[in-house]
């Protein structure tokens, strides 16, 4: 495979996928997908409906483990068998539904299932250490440049962009190494989309490896460093956004012939030619 241009870092990629395949009964959902994500890099995963984006995300997150292939995290081969394993390894996913409890405030949501306790009584009955949690919440929200009325506001009263931010902040709190965002800007207005894109940049600046699934190429081109295109379960292209036009990516997504116009200096490009 051609050497990928990592815009921010070099050396060992944070996460490497090697020959990932997955079948559902007779359907081959993923065939031999390989790509790398570096620390401080945002990879956009694009493709038409049914291209295998969700299947791939589920494989990385451990929700639907892959049948074949290797995941290599910071140079070490890992075995992702369940979401808990993935989370322990530092791979966190923010799904479209965000998985927030609307009735709880921001602090409670961030620490849900990982509450800080004062340490002198048996586990579940220990008083919560609200002050410690609130302090940490403010630190995390600041690094993400998120603004809220108060960290004690119930999540239900936040805007869509803020809610997305809280869901992402949860992953930071768990010391994630790789963060996957599933359609983070779907159903958001212009201002809130901007807010979320800013958030993704912040994640990158924190040195995280970020994988973003999106349908919205405008968003993708604004924030990602590398675009990986899936079509019918195969990876059909890897583009560096700096030297690519959206048209080329669209051509790759749909499988249209675009080859003639493509400049030859593109990195690791494998346009429509990989047809079976």
């Amino acid at each position: 495979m051609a050497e990928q241009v990592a815009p921010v870092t070099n050396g060992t990629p944070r996460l490497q996928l090697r020959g990932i395949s997955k079948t559902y009964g007779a359907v081959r959902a993923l065939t031999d997908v390989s790509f790398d994500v570096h620390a401080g890099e945002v990879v956009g995963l694009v493709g038409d409906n049914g291209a295998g984006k969700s299947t791939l995300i589920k494989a990385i997150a451990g929700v639907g483990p892959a049948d074949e292939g290797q995941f290599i995290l910071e140079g070490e081969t890992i075995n992702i068998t369940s979401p808990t394993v993935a989370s322990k390894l530092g791979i966190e996913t923010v799904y479209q539904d965000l998985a927030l409890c609307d009735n709880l405030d921001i602090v409670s949501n961030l620490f849900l299932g990982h509450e800080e306790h004062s340490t002198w009584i048996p586990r579940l009955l220990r008083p919560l250490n609200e002050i410690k949690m609130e302090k940490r919440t403010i630190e995390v929200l600041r690094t993400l440049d998120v603004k809220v009325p108060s960290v004690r506001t119930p999540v239900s009263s936040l805007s869509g962009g803020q809610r997305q931010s809280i869901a992402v902040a949860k992953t930071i709190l768990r010391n994630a190494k790789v963060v996957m965002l599933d359609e983070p800007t779907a159903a958001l207005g212009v201002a809130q989309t901007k807010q979320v894109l800013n958030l993704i940049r912040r994640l990158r600046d924190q040195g995280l490896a970020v994988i973003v699934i999106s349908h919205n190429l405008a968003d993708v081109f604004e924030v990602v460093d590398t675009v990986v295109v899936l079509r019918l379960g195969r990876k059909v292209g890897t583009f560096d956004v700096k030297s690519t036009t959206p048209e080329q990516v669209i051509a790759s997504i749909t499988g249209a012939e675009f080859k003639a116009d493509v400049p030859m200096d593109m990195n690791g490009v494998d346009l429509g030619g990989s047809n079976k």
Partner: protein
Amino acid sequence: MSETISPKPPVEQQQQMVEIPTARTRPTLSQLLRQDLGFLPVMFTLIVIAIYFQATTGGLFLTPRNISNLILQIGEIGIIGLGAALVLLLGEIDLSLAAVATMSAVAMGVLSERMGVGPWEAVLIGILIGAGAGLINGVFIAILRIPSFIVTLAASIGYSGLLLFSLAGDSSLVIHDPTLISLSGTYLSNLVGTGIPIVVILLYIASVLINEVRRRRAGLRTKSVGALAIQIGLVVLLGGGVLVLFNSYLGVPSAAALLILFILLVWLLLVKTGFGRHVYAVGGNIEAARRAGINVVGIRLAVFTMASTLAAIGGILAASRGLSVSSQIDPTLLLNAIASAVIGGVSLFGGQGSVWSIILGALIIGSLENGLDLRSQGTDVKQMIEGAVLLLAVTVDALTRRAQARSRSGR
């Protein structure tokens, strides 16, 4: 905003960068009524009811003696309502609470009167039977994932049969044991009845102040002195007022003390511990709770068990006050318990509500019962009115939810 992340500013500064109070739109009155001041309409209703009965019973309603009676009446409704509230917080319902309450009381009565078991042992076994019934509910609901509505309805019907069976044909059993009778009807001595509440209130004030000091030290946002004073003042005023009221008759009735004690314990559990946080989380968004690694099955099992345990305690208190146990389940008991939770603002849809408000709910239900009794109205009128009140409370809850959802999507 700063580009580099590395040099960390002190927390106070961070707090100012994250929490932007001006970003908060000023809440309208109707929003406030749906949130922090949600108890005001309930309080207002209670006052209207009190004034109405005071006027129509010739001043009998608001005498210290009648209020003391009223408190005895709501002791059991409140404790069973507390169990109902726990289950409602999960977004579930428990229709077997009244049956469990009655069954535990009957078990206690039979053990004590017919089998010669000591009073405390009888009470303990009664409570354990209640806990066991709750655990059975929990197994079906949490582990086998059968809808709680059906499981508890079936349990309720089954237990009413079991009641007839265990009283062996009698319709009721009179309780003679003086210890059992004294459970509900005693008045605490002045030292205990006044001393403990004062200590509790002082502890509360101390913990509020210490918490504020620690927050200030940690650089977090603190309340203004005025807000603190109002918060503490309200609690002192309420607690003091209730104490004076009780002491103007015979003292603090043990039923009231037990109700407040259990509410206090459940409140501490719900608000101050991880367990409580998880209960609210499961009620708010069960899928999110599961993904956060919360033991959803364990939480639901525990809550259903606790609810039935509280119901058993309520049932035993009711038996103690009524001096007998009966094979017939009081038809309005379940409704009253659930109504006192819902009227108090515990949402039927899960995850919303405070257990303290159950006192208000139980007071409304109790006042209706008590006032209608004073006016010598029969069961017919009482049941119709109580049914209507529950329907009204549930409707208000549902409409509030919808209004909240609307105001959110409009943001």
